[in-house]
């Protein structure tokens, strides 16, 4: 096989009401990723094709697309691993399409801000007190969740996010947990106000696909379920110990 066909979803809002498919024949190379094929199209065949990419090494999280129905990082998806026949490339599901393979991520960015994904301190010791020391066990508690690269594959895999757009979503909740579980953070109660709402953790019905597609093994589904347990325990505590 010396070439392969890519069927790419195009959407040119100035010309068409709905997306259409366009086929491109690109060279097949065993070491090419889907992103390499898209770059070939952009450079050699059709400069009008729009998509996002940056690092080409699975770090920046920019090149997430739907390849043959699966949300994936195109820089980490080999052409050779795709089944025979045309390779279908679409934008990530769940996000409005601005153009071709480019989705609008504003909704996520707004939600991310709501969960305050930074270290919150109620008291700030003086600099002379030294660093906030942390044991390896304390680091291990949240490290997994800190690996998130905001690639949005988990949102694209989550049918709940597409059905209920108010849902805060997997990555934002996993990132909230990243800080909740950090021994240096004191903002768990503030985040609880946001996450314990209906559009927070309780919208999640544990489909589990967010964790299945995560390229960094963050396990957002696990983070959400753990947060549900914590929120339920908090509610029970507030009933039995309302003075706390």
């Amino acid at each position, binding site marked *: 096989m010396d070439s392969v066909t890519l069927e790419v979803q195009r959407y040119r809002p100035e010309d068409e009401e709905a997306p259409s498919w366009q086929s491109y024949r690109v060279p097949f190379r065993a070491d090419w990723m889907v992103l390499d094929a898209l770059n070939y199209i952009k450079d050699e065949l059709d400069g009008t094709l729009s998509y996002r990419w940056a690092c080409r090494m699975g770090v920046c999280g920019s090149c997430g697309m739907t390849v043959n129905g699966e949300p994936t990082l195109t820089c980490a998806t080999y052409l050779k691993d795709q089944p025979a026949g045309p390779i279908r490339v679409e934008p990530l599901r769940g996000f409005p399409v601005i153009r071709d393979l480019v989705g609008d991520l504003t909704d996520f960015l707004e939600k991310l801000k709501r969960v305050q994904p930074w270290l919150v301190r109620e008291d700030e010791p003086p600099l002379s007190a030294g660093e906030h020391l942390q044991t390896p066990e304390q680091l291990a508690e949240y490290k997994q969740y800190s690996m998130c690269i905001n690639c949005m594959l988990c949102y694209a895999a989550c049918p709940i996010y597409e059905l209920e757009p108010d849902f805060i979503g997997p990555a934002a909740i996993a990132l909230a947990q990243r800080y909740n579980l950090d021994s240096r953070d004191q903002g768990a109660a503030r985040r609880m106000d946001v996450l314990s709402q209906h559009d927070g953790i309780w919208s999640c019905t544990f489909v589990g*696909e967010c964790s299945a597609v995560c390229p960094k093994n963050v396990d957002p589904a696990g983070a959400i379920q753990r947060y549900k347990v914590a929120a339920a325990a908090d509610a029970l505590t507030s009933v039995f110990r309302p003075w706390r």
Partner: protein
Amino acid sequence: MAVNPNYTPYHPKWYRRRIPIFWWARKLSYVRFISREMTSVFVAYGAVVLLLQAWTVLRGDDTYRGFQQWLETPAVVVVHAVVLLIVLFHSVTWLSLAPQALAVHLGRYRVPAGAILAAHYLAWLVVSGLVGWVLLGR
């Protein structure tokens, strides 16, 4: 929270996909999820039958015996055998999620997923044994 006016989420030109009603049929994992969720209806059915049975006990011997006779009719036995299988499927798929939801620590030691799963199955066995003892042991 203010939204950047240049990036309103309701831009009329941006394309939004219509979600097909059978979105879950697209992928095996979605089918598995829907099956797990839908089988909870049969768990509810089992609970209703149990409550009805308790209610007939309160109503007296005749009502209880009538309900027992209905439970023993072949059609109901077949239906309840199928319901039992469905409820078992629901229970197993539900329990298999437990390790992902629970992070249990014993001091500095984090309990592994297998042990959490085993503990749930053990609890299930103990409760089932207790219920069996109450229903059949006398």
